[in-house]
């Protein structure tokens, strides 16, 4: 198209554009006559629409114009825009609770109220406080106080009974009154309070109430032989009550009622099968078998062709939904619908987790940590609309646009601009929905994989394990270090160091565990201490990112051997995390791998690798490095 005339300009301006799941990045460079690259500017913006679809165009244009503006260049000077070949990746998350704790016949109360009263063990027959007046002196009594009783009245009633010779040895209360009543009793006894469903405590039954001193835990009711001693049980009966003892371990207070067939059971909830197809096999696994069993089957079905879940379960619904979303995304007006056969679940990650859940049959809102399995799945398709995006970008910018290379290869190429990196190099792109790996061998061969599970799964694990019920808070727990606000003027960081402030901290963070966001400390709504929150956060990251890093790298490593890798460069949003890169590096260190967060072009950190890779590849291309004379 260029006619004869003045010689080719000495430099050609090109823009590499990487459309990712959440961000779109641009890299502007000029290529000299000998193929020498000088980088002029980069830009980053939110991806518009689902990656790999025409909706990406506005975001791509924004990023291109941003990079041009930073370099003081105009769109008219651009020779070519290079886009990455990217296929849409859609991921989904689901969680199934697979165990359930059930208390039958109200056999125990183990909610561990914060302020029980008195100390020691009291064993007697349960009697309502309303009937205490008619109680004959003699047999020891555990007094049950329902809702609506004032603490002064209850204490007076118990004192009056004791005065008459009734042996009140313990009390169980509906309200939060244990200390108040104990303080008013002529003779102190152990008192357990805040039993919401106190009316369900069976009356006329032998019961034991135990309260330990502050800072200590109960010794008798959490010990099977202690229970046997208290209730005079034979060995068979002792075997039967041992789950009760286990359930009460670690409590400061507890009540056990001896009922004919009372029990505490831990039941598994069947949640259906996961059907995995791959490697010429169709394998089935029960989701309630746990993460280890599921991942074992996933491993045997590699490479995975597709997966299905049982309809009506969370997992089944989630798998169907990611498939449908992909079908919607690929649906273009005026074109034949995408066959569902082309939309397949390509990877599944199962993680064991736990969710705090109300105990069935509990009288006092007891909560048990139930086992659960979290599942991440990923679907990709071979169809890409990137050429359409290129056409639209070309139209919008008034410059040529083309597909410059495949995402994985370009990422590796860009990662190679990190100082200190050489082939063979693998990149790990730590994203939101998927973790991607690509390997460039010494010989220049490139392989790439996507595996399911990344930042969003970490957020979900943190949210459910801490029972936050607030994704925004969970997200900030993931991103920012923790601290405890110890006064209005100082906080203790999670590493134990203390920081002082001149201005008082805001009242809503007072005495709370906080995350240190750039906008200041934000409270984490949990009763757990800082250490617990930290442990949950780090475990969630380890179970997703460290596990996935190893899984993905094994898939690209020659022969699945991690020792064959030399350099691993971490890229993507989660590579900016304050601890994930260190956790992955620690996990890879035993394999003799150099691992660190990328620094693309020596300036961009883990950002802009694909865009920079597009530019490098273009400059190195044999047809382009030395353009022939115009003809």
């Amino acid at each position, binding site marked *: 198209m260029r006619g004869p005339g003045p010689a080719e300009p000495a430099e050609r301006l090109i823009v590499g554009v990487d459309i990712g799941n959440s961000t779109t990045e641009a890299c502007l460079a000029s290529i000299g006559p000998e193929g020498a690259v000088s980088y002029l500017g980069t830009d980053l913006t*939110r991806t518009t*629409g689902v990656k790999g679809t025409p909706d990406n165009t*506005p*975001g791509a244009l924004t990023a291109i114009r941003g990079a041009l503006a930073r370099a003081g260049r105009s769109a008219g000077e651009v020779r070519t825009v290079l886009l990455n070949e990217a296929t849409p990746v859609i991921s989904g998350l689901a969680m199934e609770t697979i165990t359930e704790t059930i208390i039958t016949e109200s056999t125990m109360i183990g909610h561990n109220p914060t302020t029980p009263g008195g100390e020691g063990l009291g064993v007697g027959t349960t009697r309502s406080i309303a009937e205490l007046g008619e109680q004959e002196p003699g047999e020891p009594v555990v007094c049950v106080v329902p809702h609506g009783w004032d603490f002064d009245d209850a204490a007076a009633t118990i004192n009056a009974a004791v005065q008459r010779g009734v042996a009140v040895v313990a009390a169980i209360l509906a309200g939060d009154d244990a200390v108040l009543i104990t303080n008013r009793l002529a003779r102190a006894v152990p008192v357990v309070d805040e039993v919401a469903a106190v009316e369900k405590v069976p009356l006329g039954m032998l019961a034991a109430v135990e309260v330990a001193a502050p800072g200590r835990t109960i010794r008798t009711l959490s010990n099977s032989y202690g229970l046997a001693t208290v209730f005079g049980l034979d060995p068979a009966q002792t075997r039967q009550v041992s789950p009760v003892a286990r359930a009460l371990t670690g409590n400061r207070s507890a009540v056990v009622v001896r009922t004919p067939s009372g029990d505490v059971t831990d039941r598994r909830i069947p949640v259906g099968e996961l059907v995995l197809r791959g490697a010429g096999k169709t394998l089935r696994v029960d989701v309630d078998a746990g993460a280890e069993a599921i991942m074992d089957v996933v491993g045997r079905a590699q490479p995975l062709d597709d997966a299905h879940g049982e309809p009506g379960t969370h997992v089944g619904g989630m798998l169907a939904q990611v498939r449908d979303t992909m079908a919607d995304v690929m649906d273009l007006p005026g074109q034949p619908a995408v066959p569902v056969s082309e939309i397949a679940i390509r990877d599944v990650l199962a993680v064991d987790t736990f969710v705090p859940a109300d105990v069935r049959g509990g009288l006092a809102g007891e909560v048990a940590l139930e086992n659960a399995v979290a599942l991440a799945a990923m679907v990709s398709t071979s169809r890409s609309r990137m050429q359409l995006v290129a056409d639209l970008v070309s139209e919008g910018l008034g410059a040529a646009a083309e597909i410059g290379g495949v995402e994985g290869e370009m990422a590796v190429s860009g990662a190679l601009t990190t100082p200190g990196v050489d082939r063979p190099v693998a990149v790990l792109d730590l994203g939101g929905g998927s973790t991607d790996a690509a390997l460039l061998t010494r010989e220049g061969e490139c392989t790439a994989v996507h595996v399911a599970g990344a930042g969003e799964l970490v957020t979900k694990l943190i949210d459910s394990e801490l029972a936050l019920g607030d*994704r*925004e808070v969970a*997200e900030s727990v993931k991103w920012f270090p923790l601290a405890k606000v110890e006064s209005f003027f100082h906080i203790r960081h999670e590493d134990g160091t203390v920081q002082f402030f001149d201005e008082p901290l805001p009242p809503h963070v007072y005495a709370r565990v906080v995350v240190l966001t750039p906008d200041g400390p934000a409270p984490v709504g949990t009763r757990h201490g800082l250490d617990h929150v930290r442990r949950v956060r780090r475990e969630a990251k380890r179970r997703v990112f460290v596990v996935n890093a190893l899984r993905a790298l094994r898939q690209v490593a020659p022969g699945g051997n991690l020792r064959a890798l030399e350099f691993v460069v971490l890229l993507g949003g989660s590579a900016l995390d304050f601890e994930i890169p260190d956790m992955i590096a620690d996990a890879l260190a035993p394999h003799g791998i150099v691992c660190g967060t990328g620094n693309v072009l020596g300036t961009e950190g883990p950002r802009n690798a694909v865009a920079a890779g597009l530019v490098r590849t273009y400059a190195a291309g044999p047809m382009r490095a030395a353009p022939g004379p115009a003809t």
Partner: protein
Amino acid sequence: MTSTAPRTGTAPRQSLRTEILEARPVNLDGFVEEWPEKGLVAMESAFDPAPSVRVEDGQIVELDGKTRDEFDFMDTFIANHAIDVASAERCTAMPSAEIARMLMDPRASRDEVLAVTRGLTPAKILDVVKLMNVVEIMQGMQKMRARRTPANQGHSTSARDNPVQVAADAAEGALRGFAELETTLGVLRYAPLVAIALQVGAQVGRGGVLTQCALEEATELELGMRGITAYAETISIYGTESVFIDGDDTPWSKAFLASAYASRGIKMRFTSGTGSEVQMGNAEGKSMLYLEIRCILMAKGAGVQGLQNGSISCIGVPGAVPGGLRAVAAENLVASMVDLECASGNDQSFSHSAMRRTARAMPQLLPGTDFVCSGYSSVPNADNMFAGSNFDTEDFDDWNTIQRDFQVDGGLRHVREDEILQARDKAARALQAVFAHLDLPPITDDEVAAATYANSSNDYPFRDVLSDLKGAQSVMDREITGLDLVKGLEAAGFHDVAENLLTVLRQRVSGDLLQTSAVLTADFTPLSAINDPNDYAGPGTGYRLEGERWEQLKKLRHVTSSTNPETEVG
């Protein structure tokens, strides 16, 4: 929770009639005795100052019994900026009865009255309106209202801050006739999305409806400057220096804020009302109406075109003292008689009694004001994030019937169900398109369907609040403006809505909405005290509900046809 029976216990036996009366909702309202020494009195207090004014060297040196060295900053501001120095001594010396008669007398034109009122001191104005009973006050309002054509304002909010709901309800509200729509938030960070929804919904319902989002002052101004909202109203002022200072404000700081709006061509008005000072315990022993008149003159002195008053959020205080609603009617009249736009209250939960709620609005509805309600809840009161209004969606048909009964224009009309459904559907779809264009959290087709037929926020699918809040933040970070909304609407094929919004935005260039009492008609003609001045001059003059508008207001949900009584018209 507080709706317990007011009086219980082992009282002596009551008559059956007393039992019925005790159970009447009006007895759930609170009533108190006056205490004039503390300012707990509507408008008749021996502790209010006597009017006086003295001018020296072109400066007011004495105002209502205080010399300049005794002035507080309200006195100073009013003396320096609100009273016409040239006519002050002459006008204040006129007999109050004569001024009161001028307010009522159809033969005294509005302009003739204004020539007098601009020279009056606060105590003099109080002295004048104290002579007037409520019918006389209404007669004065009929003439002194700045805009000839009355109008109404609506609240469009959501208990869940759901933008889809706000858009659909705004469209319905606009269609029913509200000239202005106002929103606010439960979760403040939602503001950008809800303000966008209000703007888009309103322009679907009827092009030219003005919208605002009540927020903390800086954010409210920013949304206005970006053209996401079209006017502002919740800039509160108070009648005593101590209450002003408690809010870290002065008349000058409020005037500065007003000029910030004016500099961008954005309509705005202040807010004040009887009872706020005594509610905060700082009435300085003055009656509620006297302090409110100081507010009105302060607003006048600051140069704003209008005021929202009528006790507003303190209505429970004047509502509980004798003559309280007469004082509330009088404060609306005073705003109008000093040539300010008056958005006249009726906008907060006022009474348990339906009869009292209706009666409370008559002094504004019958003579007509610039905005009879400021505003009427165009969502169910449970969704009203202004803590509930005196009227809500359940009262629409009653309101329309009262307009028809008395042949008065309260700004609303009956609209056929099919038109409403169409507008609600279109508003939700337009917002869906705008959100998609701006890459905000998507609105599903299910939400659109829900919006079409919904009554309250409970009838909508839950939205992903976290994504919405991130989206709301991105609206601010990306510096999205009203023009981006126009582009999104145009790109999605909502050409008419885009055109409506663009035309509203253009008004800030012409500045026409800065004129007193300005609203936009359906053909985008600014209607204000300049081009639609109130020309009431007695029977048969001024605004009359007649012609096409009267035909509109004759329609109700069920009216039996006179040609075929077996059918209904409508």
